[in-house]
C-alpha cells in the first residue's frame, strides 16, 4: 500500500505537469525530446502543485489529499476542454521512442551504466533512512508535518518556523506526507532524487540537440558524479531544490539565446517560456532565489539590448506575464518584505537581526584575503566538486575565443555573477561569520555548479572535432534519439 502511495506522490505532479506543459508549449512541443518533456513535466507539476496548495490554503480550503486532487483535476479538465482541441500537435500525443541498445557504443554503455548506478544509489540513500538532518527537522519538515495534521500552514505555531522563507520546501514536503497518507520521514524524500533524475535527463537532452551522444553522456556522467550535489539530493534541505530550478531556468534561458542567435524563432520562444516558468519557481524555493532570478533577468535584459534590432518584443509578453503570475501570490501574501530584507542583508544594512549578526562576526583585518583563501581552498582542495572548477578555468583559458563569442558569453556572465554574488554576500553582509565557520559557502556554490559544467560542455564539445564546430542539426539528432 505504501508503495502505491509513493507512486501517487510522483505521478500526480507528473501528470499535472504534462497537462501544464501542453498548455504552455503545446504547439511547439515537438522541439523537445520525449524524455525531456517527462523530465520537465515533473518539476513543473510539482511547482504548480505547490502554488495550488498555497492558493487553496489562502482561500481557507483544507489541504487534504482529495481537495488537492480535485483542484488539480479541475485545472486539467479546463486545459483539456479549452486548450487541447485548438492545439495542432497536442503535447500528449507524442509516442514513446524506441530504445535500441545495440546501437550503443561500448563507451556509451559504460557511461549509461555508471549514471544508472548513481541514480539507484541516490534513490537508495534518500529513502532508506528516516530524516537525520537537523536543519531539515528544525525548519522544513516540522512545517510539512504540521500541514499534514492541520491541513493548512496558516497557524501561528507553524509560521514561527516559516518566518520569511519561501514556501516551496514546506509545501512540497507537505504534499509528500499528504500523498503518502502518513508521516513517513524516509519515503517523503522521494521527491529530490526524482528531481535529480530529471536534472540528468534535461541536461543530456539540452546538449543532445546539438552534439553527438557520447559527449553528451560524458557530460551527464560528470554531472551525476558531483559528490556534494549527490549528497544533498538525499537530504531534506532546500539547497538542491533551488539548484535544480535555477539550473533548468538558466539552461533554457541560454537555449533561448542560442536558438535566437541561430534565427530559430519558434524554438527560441518555446525555450523562453520554459526558462521563465522555472525562473519564477526558483524564487519559491529559497531566499537566495531572489538574487539568482535578479541575475538572470539582468542578463536577459542585456541580451535583449544586444539584439534589440531583431527582437520582437511582443513575443516576450506572454512568457513575462507567466513569470509575474508565478511570483504574484508570493509577493501579494506579504512576502515582498523578504525581498527587501534579503537585499539589505546582502549589502549589510539589514534590520536588527542582521546588525546582531554583524556584531557577532569575528573581526578580521584582511577580509578579502581571508575570503579568497577560503574560496580557493573550498573550490579546489575539497571533494565537493571533483575537478569541476579546474575544468572551468581550463575552459576559460584554452577556449577563450569560443567563450567570448555570442551567446556563450551570456551564460558565462550568469555563472560569474552567481559566484560573485556569493563573494558580495560574504564580503559586505551579515554572512561573513558563516564563511569562517564553513557552514554556508559550499551550499551557495552548489547553485552554480551544474551550470558551470554545462557551460564547459557547451564550450569544449564543439571544439573537439578539430577547430570546426561539431554541431549536428536537430533533425539528425532526433533521428538518432532512439539510440
Amino acid at each position: 500500500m505504501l508503495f502505491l502511495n509513493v507512486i501517487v506522490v510522483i505521478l500526480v505532479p507528473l501528470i499535472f505537469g504534462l497537462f501544464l506543459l501542453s498548455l504552455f508549449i503545446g504547439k511547439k512541443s515537438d522541439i523537445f525530446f520525449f524524455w525531456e518533456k517527462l523530465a520537465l513535466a515533473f518539476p513543473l507539476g510539482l511547482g504548480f502543485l505547490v502554488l495550488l496548495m498555497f492558493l487553496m490554503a489562502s482561500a481557507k480550503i483544507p489541504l487534504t489529499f482529495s481537495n488537492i486532487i480535485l483542484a488539480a483535476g479541475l485545472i486539467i479538465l479546463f486545459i483539456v476542454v479549452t486548450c487541447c482541441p485548438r492545439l495542432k500537435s497536442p503535447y500528449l500525443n507524442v509516442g514513446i521512442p524506441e530504445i535500441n541498445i545495440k546501437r550503443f557504443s561500448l563507451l556509451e554503455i559504460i557511461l549509461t551504466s555508471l549514471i544508472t548506478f548513481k541514480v539507484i544509489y541516490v534513490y537508495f540513500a534518500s529513502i532508506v533512512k528516516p530524516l537525520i538532518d537537523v536543519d531539515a527537522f528544525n525548519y522544513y519538515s516540522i512545517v510539512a508535518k504540521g500541514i499534514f495534521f492541520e491541513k493548512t500552514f496558516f497557524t501561528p505555531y507553524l509560521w514561527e518556523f516559516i518566518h520569511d522563507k519561501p514556501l516551496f520546501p514546506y509545501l512540497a514536503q507537505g504534499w509528500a506526507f499528504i500523498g503518502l497518507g502518513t508521516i513517513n520521514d524516509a519515503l517523503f524524500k522521494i521527491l529530490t532524487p526524482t528531481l535529480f533524475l530529471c536534472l540528468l535527463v534535461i541536461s543530456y537532452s539540452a546538449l543532445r540537440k546539438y552534439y553527438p551522444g557520447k559527449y553528451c553522456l560524458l557530460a551527464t556522467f560528470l554531472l551525476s558524479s558531483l559528490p556534494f550535489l549527490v549528497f544533498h539530493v538525499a537530504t531534506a534541505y532546500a539547497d538542491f531544490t533551488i539548484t535544480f530550478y535555477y539550473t533548468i531556468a538558466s539552461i533554457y534561458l541560454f537555449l533561448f539565446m542560442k536558438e535566437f542567435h541561430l534565427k530559430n524563432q519558434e524554438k527560441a520562444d518555446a525555450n523562453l517560456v520554459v526558462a521563465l516558468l522555472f525562473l519564477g519557481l526558483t524564487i519559491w524555493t529559497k531566499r537566495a532565489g531572489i538574487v539568482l532570478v535578479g541575475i538572470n533577468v539582468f542578463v536577459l535584459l542585456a541580451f535583449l539590448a544586444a539584439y534589440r534590432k531583431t527582437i520582437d518584443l511582443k513575443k516576450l509578453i506572454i512568457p513575462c506575464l507567466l513569470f509575474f503570475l508565478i511570483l504574484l501570490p508570493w509577493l501579494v501574501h506579504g512576502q515582498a518584505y523578504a525581498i527587501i530584507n534579503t537585499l539589505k542583508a546582502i549589502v549589510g544594512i539589514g534590520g536588527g537581526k542582521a546588525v546582531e549578526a554583524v556584531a557577532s562576526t569575528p573581526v578580521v583585518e584582511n577580509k578579502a584575503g581571508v575570503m579568497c583563501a577560503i574560496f580557493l581552498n573550498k573550490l579546489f582542495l575539497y571533494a565537493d566538486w571533483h575537478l569541476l572548477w579546474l575544468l572551468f578555468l581550463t575552459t576559460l583559458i584554452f577556449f577563450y575565443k569560443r567563450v567570448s563569442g555570442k551567446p556563450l558569453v551570456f551564460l558565462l556572465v550568469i555563472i560569474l555573477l552567481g559566484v560573485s554574488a556569493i563573494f558580495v554576500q560574504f564580503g559586505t553582509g551579515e554572512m561573513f561569520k558563516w564563511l569562517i565557520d564553513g557552514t554556508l559557502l559550499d551550499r551557495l556554490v552548489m547553485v552554480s555548479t551544474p551550470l558551470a559544467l554545462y557551460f564547459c560542455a557547451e564550450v569544449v564539445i564543439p571544439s573537439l572535432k578539430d577547430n570546426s564546430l561539431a554541431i549536428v542539426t536537430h533533425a539528425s539528432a532526433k533521428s538518432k534519439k532512439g539510440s
Partner: protein
Amino acid sequence: MRLLGVAIVFCLAALPAIGLDQPITFQPVSDQPYWQTPELVIDSADYDTLILKIESKQNGTAKLFWMNHYDMQFNQPKSTWFSVKAGTHDYYLNIASQNQYWMGWIKGLLLYPEFDSKSITINEANIIKGNIFTNIMSGWQEFWGPKGRLIIGSTINTMQSSYLFGRSIFVYIYWMIGIFSVFFLLKKIKKLLLQKQKLSFELLFNRAGKVVVGTIIFFWCLLELNTMYNNWQMARMDFPLIGKTIDEQRTLVNTGDFYQFMLFCEKYISPEADFDYSIPPVYNDIKARFYLYPRKITKEADFLVVYDKDPEKEQVNRYKPWKTFRQGAYIAKKR
C-alpha cells in the same frame, strides 16, 4: 631476481626503524572510554611514526591525541583520525606528515576509539623514526582512512577530500595533471613535427586545451571511482535499515534510547497538549519538536519532557515527575 633485489633494498630501508624504535605502553583509563600512556619525553623531530598493534572486535574509527610541552592538553587540533578494522592489525601513523602540531617534546598520547572502547586491546605500541616502508603503509592507511570517506555531522556543509601525508589528494592530482598534460602535449608536437605540419601558436594552444581537458576528465573518473567506493561504504552502513518499519528505523538512527522515549511521550501526552522540555541542546531537542508534533512546544505547558538533562530551577518548581521511562528520562506534570 629483480624482485628479490627490490625486496632486499626495501628491508634495508626499513632497518633504521628496528634500531630506533621506542616501545610505549597504552593503558585503559578506568571509567573512561579511552587509552592513555604514562608521561613521556619524546623528541618529535627524532620520532615521527607510531606503530600500533590493535586487536578489535568491530570495525570503526579512532582518534589519537597528543600533548606537547607547548600545550599540555589533549585537544582536537593535536589529533589524527584513522580507521580500525575488526581483528588484529598493525596501524602505521606517520603523525608528523599528517599534522603540523606534532612538534616539540611529546609528553603523552591518548587513543580514543569512537565505538565501545572495551572491544579493543592495544597489544603493542612503538614510536619510531619513519622509513620508506612505514611511510608507504602510513600513506596507504591514511588514504583509505575515514577523512574524506565517512559522512560526519558537518558534511552537510562540506565534503573533505581523501588525504595523503597530511595533504589533500587534490594537490597530488593537480601535479599529475600538469605533468601528464606536458608529456602528452610534447608527444603531440613530436607527431606533428614528424608529419611536417606547420606549428602555429593557435594550433598548439588548441591542442594543449584538448590535452588538458582530456587529462582532467581522466583524473575526474579516477576520483569518481574513489567516490563510488565511498558511496558503497555508506550504502553498506544503511543496509541494516532495509525491511524495518519506520519506528524501528528511527530507533536505529537516533542515539541510545531517545526514540523509544519519544514513543513513550507520545503514549502519555495527548496530541492536543503542549509541552516544555529539558533535553540537551543541538540535536535531540530539535528532533523532539518534530517527533512529538502535533504536541506543541510552549513555555508554561502542561507537561515537561526531561531527557538526560536536569530541569532548570524554575521548571522544578513548576512541574513534578509524573511518568518515568527510566532514571533521567521522564515526563513531569504541572503542579
